[in-house]
């Protein structure tokens, strides 16, 4: 019994220590003296790997989710004779919830896992150590550009997801189901507010981007430098960031739309 308490205490302490260390990693890498000439090309390269290469999965998923929303919205709304409101429903669900959340989940699987594995492998093959011995801080050279690239890419990906999704919704409901195009778009414009919906959605995407990238980078940097260690760290990245995104989404939604 006592033993179990000790184990529990131990694992709580380990978790806390992990959070502390991860805070330290982020702090050390972002609070560096900016060196734009070195940083900028590295940042562009990472934005390419993290952001641009995620575009395909984001666009395809956004399209399908928008089309499904259009279809489901129509079949539900048509019973009440208000199928003209499908544009509003598609846009609100995407902008407020689905774009930030689904993008973050896809981003964790596509870019987060790759970040963890890449940094973990650099650690295992002593590339991080050898950077250190060359006199280059790996937190600034390797970690910082990846963190910034994640912070920047994720909100942009979420915005693209929402736009493609809305277009997919329009495709299904206007082109296929024959809703009048004018009422589809005007309903949408009347009901989606910029500050209330779009801005809140972007804030969510920014928060998710920070959390997912932070988790991914730290898991790689802190992994046990072996094959098993890297594979476990990659799994943890996907699991932890998905859970964190869903939990944070609930909290943010409650704060933004809950009228508390």
């Amino acid at each position, binding site marked *: 019994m006592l033993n179990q308490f000790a184990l529990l205490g131990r694992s709580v302490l380990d978790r806390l220590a992990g959070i502390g260390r991860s805070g330290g990693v982020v702090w*050390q890498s972002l609070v560096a003296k900016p060196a734009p000439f070195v940083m900028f090309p590295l940042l562009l390269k990472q934005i390419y790997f993290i952001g641009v290469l995620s575009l395909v999965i984001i666009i395809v998923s956004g399209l399908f989710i928008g089309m499904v929303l259009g279809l489901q919205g129509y079949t539900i709304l048509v019973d009440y004779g208000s199928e003209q409101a499908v544009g509003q429903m598609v846009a609100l669900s995407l902008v407020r919830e689905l774009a930030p959340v689904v993008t973050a989940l896809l981003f964790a699987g596509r870019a987060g896992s790759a970040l963890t594995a890449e940094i973990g492998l650099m650690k295992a*093959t*002593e*590339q991080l*150590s*050898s950077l*250190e*011995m*060359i*006199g*280059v*801080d790996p937190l600034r050279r390797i970690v910082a550009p990846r963190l910034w690239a994640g912070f920047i890419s994720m909100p942009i990906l979420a915005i693209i997801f929402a736009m493609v999704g809305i277009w997919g919704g329009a495709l299904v409901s206007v082109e296929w189901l024959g809703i009048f195009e004018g009422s589809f778009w005007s309903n949408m414009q009347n009901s989606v507010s910029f500050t209330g919906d779009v801005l809140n959605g972007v804030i969510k995407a920014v928060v998710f981007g920070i959390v997912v990238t932070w988790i991914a980078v730290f898991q790689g940097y802190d992994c046990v430098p072996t094959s098993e260690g890297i594979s476990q760290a990659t799994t943890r990245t996907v699991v932890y960031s998905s859970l964190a995104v869903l939990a944070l989404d609930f909290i943010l939604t409650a704060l933004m739309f809950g009228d508390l």
Partner: protein
Amino acid sequence: MSVNNSPESIIDISALSFSRGTRQIFRHVDMKIPRGKITAIMGPSGTGKTTLLKLIGGQLRPDGGHIEIDGLDVHGISRQQLFTLRERMGMLFQSGALFTDMSVYENVAFPIKVHTKLPDDMVRDIVLLKLQAVGLRGARDLMPSELSGGMARRVALARAIALDPDIVMYDEPFTGQDPIAKGVLVKLIRQINEALGHTSIIVSHDIQETMSIADNIFLLSDGEVIASGSPQELLSNQTEQVKQFMQGLPDGPVPFHFSDDDVLEDLYFTEER
């Protein structure tokens, strides 16, 4: 047994203690590495030679004791100062540790580009000279994944000396090299040392090669320095442990096996117990 009698030491290790988990790797080790000389660190596999280099480089933190480089306490200075200090050190990692996303040329050019503002054509000249010195000028466009193990280590060596650092640490430079390359590397290490007056620390198991270039040898075993001195002094050392290591005998006071329970007991009796 004489301790090194050079008054000028560049690295001063005092009362160094370090453990990994419950295993104590160093117990109050004292060492002085003389400036401008080639110092070899030898000892059975797993005694902590690589660990010692990482402690000197400030990548590991000792449990007790100090390591001073030119009077600077490696573990007492700020992170920023430590990185500045490391610009004066070069290290050849046991695994090579080349950057896998860069070509051979870029790997060697990397330290030069980060730490100097030399124009590109000058960087190019330096890189090609260093690659020439390790016999791999023709491999400059290959990626690390396209190199053999021995080639990768030679590229790593070229990278370690790219900035002409004051202190070069070589972790097993001869491992995996054919006899010709070994000879070339021995000459290269001596040349770097003589021409530029650098301090070299070599970790190696190749007794012959090491004997032929080292000015000074430390023999580590079981967490302690068991002998030190010039190669001749070590060869004529009559202590059982030293003789065993220098002559490569399997039996003797230096344990070959990692932990010491009886092999027969382990093989035959564990199942029945």
